[in-house]
């Protein structure tokens, strides 16, 4: 039994310096996850900001040129979110790689962008939900004290919304981490693809695939635990 394990370990990791493939894959998985999460947050904040400004302008029946531009932007953002949520990520990744960024040499960067753009749609919904969870009376109180719309959002609404947004954002990052396992579709060697490459060389699927699964699990489980702790901390500050 132990001999079998040892043999599998050597075959999978040691022989021909195969561990280097795993390291490379792990590195790419982390690069893509982190970059995509950052891109996603930037896009998400932007989209939700446009949305809440446009919604406000609509409520107030504003008809200025600026307000109309906002509405158009908001419409575009709505379509973007619908498309990102309504089509499979694998297809989006392939479209990004082979059509939109067709000749682009660095496929890791293409993956970062594809996952980031997809994540942005989900992040925008997370932020929108977080903002909506804050009682509208808070906005009215801010406005009645003469705070501008942006000022109210910044000083009153967002600090309260962040308690709901932050844990959900971390969960979104975890989701991105798992989703990056399809990078192999466009020949980027991420952790999954690395395992697959080694598997095809060693012909022993058990060891490679389960090793890869364990690495993902440790990452995801660790992150989830951290989110849980964050959630409890935020809940505590609610009680004062």
């Amino acid at each position, binding site marked *: 039994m132990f001999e079998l394990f040892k043999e599998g370990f050597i075959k999978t990791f040691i022989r021909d310096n195969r561990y280097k493939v795993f390291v490379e894959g792990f590195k790419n998985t982390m690069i893509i996850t982190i970059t995509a999460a950052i891109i996603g947050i930037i896009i998400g904040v932007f989209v939700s900001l446009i949305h809440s400004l446009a919604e406000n302008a609509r409520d107030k029946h*504003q008809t200025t040129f600026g307000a109309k531009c906002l509405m158009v932007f908001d419409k575009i953002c709505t379509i973007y979110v619908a498309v990102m949520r309504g089509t499979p990520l694998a297809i989006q990744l392939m479209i990004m790689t082979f059509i939109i960024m067709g000749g682009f040499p660095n496929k890791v960067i293409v993956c970062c962008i594809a996952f980031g753009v997809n994540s942005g749609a989900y992040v925008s919904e997370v932020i929108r939900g977080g903002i909506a969870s804050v*009682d509208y009376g808070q906005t009215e*109180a801010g406005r009645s*004290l*003469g705070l*501008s719309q942006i000022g109210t959002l910044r*000083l009153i609404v967002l600090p*309260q919304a962040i308690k709901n947004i932050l844990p959900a954002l971390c969960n979104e990052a975890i989701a991105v981490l798992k989703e990056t396992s399809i990078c192999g579709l466009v020949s980027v060697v991420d952790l999954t693809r690395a395992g697959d490459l080694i598997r095809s060389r060693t012909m022993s699927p058990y060891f490679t695939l389960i090793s890869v699964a364990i690495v993902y699990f440790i990452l995801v489980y660790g992150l989830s635990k951290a989110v849980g702790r964050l959630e409890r901390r935020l809940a505590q500050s609610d*009680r*004062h």
Partner: protein
Amino acid sequence: MIDIKNLHKDFGDLKVLKNIDLHIDKGERVVIIGPSGSGKSTLLRCMNMLEVPTSGKIIFEGTDLTDNKTDLDKVRCKMGMVFQQFNLFPHKTILENMTLAPKYHKMMSDAEAKETAMKLLTRIGLADKADVYPSTLSGGQKQRVAIVRALAMGPDVMLFDEPTSALDPEMVGEVLELIGELADDGMTMAIVTHEMGFAKEVGTRVLFMDEGVIAEENEPKAFFENPQNPRLQDFLSKVL
């Protein structure tokens, strides 16, 4: 001070305010009563443009608030508003609640803002609560803080939107007492309330709203003792 001309407000097909004309002079204390859904809160909220009128004009100290070019944030600094649900900022201490807007508008230095706030808190006997969060206060205390928060801006008029409706009965008195004190100081105010005794005592003029129009207005004594409008007679017979 406040001049409302031909004010209409529709929510979709529902006509909430129908051609309201109202003039409030400096030093007046106008109390608005009426059955629910009669438009009294909407009228009050139109006065500082939290509700944007469908048509008509609202002129405050010579400025037309319905003009798109008017800087509403600046105007709202001169109009304090108190809400039924208090709307204190739960993520800020009592002191921060009070100094947030004056600091935001750079009306005073941090030290001055703090001094003003502490003076007001001392006046309502809550100076010892300056550094706690709103969740630890009783309803009556919250509403009194909300009132002095508005006062900290040095408003020319105070708008009260059912300030005691969300309070436990034993806390109504302390809030009404504070509003009464402001009245004695000569503060101009518009108050939507269901407290008839208070209306009679504090108001210089009482309006009865019904189905989006001001059905009757008079000085308090005549208003309550000798109502003309049959709807008002009916309303008073039910609430007194």
